[in-house]
C-alpha cells in the first residue's frame, strides 16, 4: 500500500481518467461564479428541505447540515460490477454466519473461528438461539464501507449490519445534483438510484411472517431528536409506511399492534432504527422508553419480523471482521472477491506486540466503537496521544484491533481554496430478502479537512453524489 493516494479523477501522469472526461470538460467550461451560485443554492435547498442531522453533545435540538460537495464520485460500469458481486457475496456469507451461530454453530465446531470470540462477545444474543427467522435472513439491510487504496484496489473497511444509516443522503444528493445540474445528466448515462425505497419495501414485505398475506410494515424510530430522524421520516414517507415510536406499538396475545385513530392495527414487519438494547424493556434495558414491552416474545413466537434481526451486531463487530473471508470460503465455497484490510487482533499476543512496536504507523480502533470516535490514527497523532493510547491498549488489549494506515483514494472536492483532492469512502446498501440486491452506487463520504482520513459526518465529513456509469 503506497503513500501517494489513488486519485479518482486523474491518472498518475496527470491525465483525466476516461470516465471523468465528460465531467472535467464541463467543469472547465463552466464559469466559476455559476458553480459558486449553484453551491449556495444547494445549501439553501438542503436547509429548507430540512435535510439535517442532530448533533449529540450540543444544545438540544441543534440541527446541522452535512456539507454537500458538487463534484460527483464516478465509478465506471466494469468496476461497479466487480464491486457489486463482491458485496453480494459478502452479505450472503454474513447472513449464513449469523444463522449458523444462532443454530448449529458449524463454523465454530469446524474451528474456523474461535468459539469464545463469538459466544463471549457482548453483541452475541443468547435470546436468539434456536429462533427461526423468515428466509434465514438476519441482516436485511447492510451498509458495507468500502475504500480504495494503493493502486486503486477496493477493500472492505467495515460491515454495518445493525442499523446502517446514510441512504437518505445518497437519494437526496442525487436529487440535488439533478436539480442543480440537469445538463450533466444529459451528457452521462448514470444508473438510477431513485428506486431504492421501492426495493426496500419489497424486500421488507418479502420477509413477513408466514400467514401475513398483505403485510403491514412500519418504521420504528427513537423519535424526532435522534440524529438520523430525517432519514427515518424520509424513508417512511418514500415507502408510504407509518413512522412509529415505541409508544405507538403494543403487544397483545403475541401479536404486535399499533394504536390508530380507529383502534389497534396488526403490524407484521418492523423496520427498526433502534439498537437491540432498547427494543424491549422486559428483556434488554429496563429503562428504555423507546421500545415495546413484550416485543421479543412476539418475535420469538414468529408473529412479527424485525429488520434487521436482533443479534446481528456480533457479525459486524471489529473483532469478527478479520474472519469474514473465512466465512465466504466456509459457507459459499468461494474465494472472496473483495479484500479485507489486513487486521491485527490485539487479543493475539503476536499481533499485540507488533502493534505496540508500530503504533505510529497504524490505525487502532475500538472493537465496539462507531462513528469515528475512540480511534488512534498513528501517523497524524502526537507522541503524547500515542503514549496515552498505548496505556489504554495495555489495560484491555482485547478491546482493540489495528490496521495499517490506508492511503484512501482522493477525489477532487470544492474547498475554500478551490478544487483540491480529499479522501473518500463509499457505503453501498445491500438488501437481502428473497434475493440479494443493491442499487448502483451508495453514499460517498468525503473528509473535508486537508489530509484527514475521517469521513464521519460527526467529525466534519461531507457527502458527494455517486455515479455508476451504465456503459
Amino acid at each position, binding site marked *: 500500500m503506497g503513500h501517494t493516494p489513488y486519485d479518482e479523477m486523474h491518472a498518475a501522469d496527470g491525465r483525466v481518467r476516461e470516465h471523468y472526461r465528460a465531467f472535467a470538460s464541463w467543469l472547465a467550461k463552466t464559469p466559476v461564479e455559476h458553480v459558486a451560485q449553484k453551491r449556495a443554492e444547494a445549501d439553501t435547498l438542503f*436547509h*429548507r*428541505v*430540512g435535510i439535517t442531522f442532530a448533533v449529540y453533545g450540543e444544545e438540544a435540538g441543534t440541527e446541522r447540515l452535512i456539507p454537500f460537495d458538487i463534484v460527483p464520485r464516478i465509478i465506471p460500469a466494469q468496476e461497479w460490477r466487480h464491486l457489486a458481486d463482491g458485496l453480494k457475496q459478502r452479505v450472503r456469507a454474513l447472513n449464513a454466519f449469523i444463522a449458523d451461530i444462532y443454530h448449529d454453530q458449524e463454523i465454530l465446531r469446524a474451528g474456523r473461528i474461535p468459539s469464545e470470540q463469538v459466544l463471549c462477545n457482548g453483541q452475541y444474543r443468547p435470546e436468539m438461539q434456536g429462533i427461526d427467522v423468515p428466509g434465514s435472513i438476519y441482516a436485511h439491510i447492510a451498509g458495507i464501507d468500502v475504500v480504495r487504496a494503493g493502486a486503486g484496489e477496493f477493500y472492505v473497511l467495515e460491515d454495518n449490519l445493525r442499523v446502517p444509516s446514510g441512504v437518505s443522503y445518497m437519494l437526496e444528493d442525487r436529487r440535488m445534483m439533478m436539480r442543480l445540474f440537469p445538463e450533466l445528466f444529459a451528457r452521462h448515462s448514470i444508473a438510477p438510484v431513485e428506486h431504492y425505497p421501492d426495493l426496500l419495501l419489497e424486500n421488507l414485505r418479502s420477509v413477513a411472517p408466514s400467514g401475513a398475506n398483505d403485510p403491514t410494515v412500519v*418504521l420504528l424510530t427513537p*423519535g*424526532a431528536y435522534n440524529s438520523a430522524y430525517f432519514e*427515518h*421520516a*424520509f424513508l*417512511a*414517507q418514500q415507502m408510504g409506511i*407509518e*413512522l*412509529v*415510536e415505541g*409508544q*405507538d406499538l*403494543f403487544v397483545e396475545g403475541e401479536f404486535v399492534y*399499533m*394504536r*390508530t*385513530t*380507529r*383502534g*389497534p392495527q396488526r403490524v407484521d414487519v418492523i423496520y427498526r432504527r433502534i439498537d437491540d438494547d432498547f427494543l424491549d424493556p422486559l428483556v434488554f434495558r429496563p429503562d428504555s422508553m423507546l421500545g415495546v414491552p413484550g416485543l421479543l416474545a412476539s418475535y420469538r413466537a414468529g408473529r412479527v419480523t424485525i429488520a434487521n434481526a436482533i443479534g446481528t451486531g456480533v457479525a459486524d463487530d471489529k473483532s469478527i471482521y478479520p474472519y469474514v473471508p473465512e466465512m465466504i470460503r466456509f459457507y459459499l465455497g468461494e474465494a472472496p472477491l473483495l479484500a479485507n484490510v489486513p487486521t491485527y487482533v490485539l487479543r493475539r499476543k503476536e499481533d499485540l506486540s507488533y502493534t505496540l512496536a508500530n503504533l505510529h504507523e497504524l490505525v487502532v480502533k475500538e472493537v465496539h466503537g462507531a462513528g469515528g470516535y475512540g480511534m488512534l490514527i498513528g501517523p497524524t497523532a502526537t507522541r503524547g496521544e500515542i503514549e496515552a493510547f498505548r496505556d489504554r491498549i495495555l489495560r484491555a488489549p482485547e478491546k482493540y484491533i489495528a490496521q495499517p494506515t490506508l492511503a484512501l483514494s482522493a477525489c477532487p472536492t470544492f474547498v475554500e481554496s478551490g478544487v483540491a483532492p480529499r479522501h473518500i469512502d463509499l457505503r453501498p446498501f445491500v438488501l437481502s430478502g428473497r434475493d440479494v440486491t443493491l442499487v448502483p452506487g451508495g453514499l460517498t463520504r468525503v473528509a473535508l479537512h486537508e489530509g484527514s482520513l475521517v469521513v464521519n459526518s460527526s467529525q466534519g465529513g461531507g457527502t458527494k453524489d455517486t455515479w455508476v456509469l451504465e456503459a
Partner: protein
Amino acid sequence: MLSRTADHLYWMARYIERAENLARMLEVNYRMSLLPQGPEIVQQSWTATLAIIGLLDAFKQRYDAMTPANAIAFLVFDRDNPMSIHSCVRAARENARAVRGTLTSEIWETLNGTWLEMRLASTRATSDAEVGNFFEWVKHRSHLARGVIQGTMLRDEAWHFTWLGTYLERSDSTARILDVKYHLLLPRGEKAGGATDYYQWSALLHSISAFEIYRRVYRDLITPRRVAELFVLRDDMPRSLRRCMSQTYTHLCALRNAHSAETERRAGELQASLHYGRIEDIFDMGLHEYLMQFLGRTRDLGERVSRDFLVSATD
C-alpha cells in the same frame, strides 16, 4: 392512522391558525393605536387583548408598562411566552417535523421555511413599518400553508384531522376577537358614528378579513348588530362561528370511530343552534354570555376529540 400522528397534525393546524389569528388581533390593535386617541384608550385596548387570550397576568409579571411596544414584544417575539407568534410558529414546525413522513414535502418545506424566516425576523429591530409588514407576512405564510395543504394533501384521515384543528382553533379565535372588541367599542358606538368609531368598527371587520364582505352583504352603514351577525351566524362567511362549526361537524363525521358518537352529537347540536339561531335571541341573552357559553362548548369539543381519537385508542 396512528393516534400520535393525528395528534401532531391536529396541533400543527391549530398552531398555524393560532399564529395567524394572533397576528390579526395584533394588527388591528396596532392600527387602532395609531389613531388619534388618548393613551388610556390604547392601554385599555391592549389590556383587553391580553385578557382574552388569558395572558394578562403573565404579561404583568414580565413587563412594567402597558405600551404597544411591550405588548408586541411579548406577543410576537417573546420565546418564553408559549403563546407568542414566535412560539406558535415553532410549535407548528415541531409538530410537522414529528410527522413529516405523513406530510407532503411541500407542506413540510413551507412550515420549515416559515420557521427559518421567523428566526431571522426575531433578530431584526422592528420599526413601525416593519411591524405592519410582519403581521402581513404571518398571514401570508398561514395562507400559504393552508393553500399547500389544500393543494397537495391526500383526502384521507390526515386531511380531516388537519382541518378539524384549523376550524376548532378558528372558531375559538373569532369568538374571542368579537367578545373583546365588541365590549370595548359598544358604549362609544351607541353614542355617535364619529370617524374614530368608524375606523374602529372597520378595523374589527378587517381583523377577520370581513370588511369587504360586510359591504357586499349589507350595502349599508356598519352597525354593531350586523357585525355580530356576520361574525356569528353567516354560513357564507369563512371565519364565522357558524361556518367553523359546520366544517368541524363535517370533518368529525368523516373521522367517525367507535367512540366518537357523543362528540359528533354535541358538534351537530352546536352546529344546528348556529344554523337556526337568530341574532335577536343572542342579543336577548347577552352577546358576552352567549360567546362565553360558545367557548365553553368548543373547549368541550376539543377535549372530546383528544379523548376519542388522539390519546391511545387501544381498545
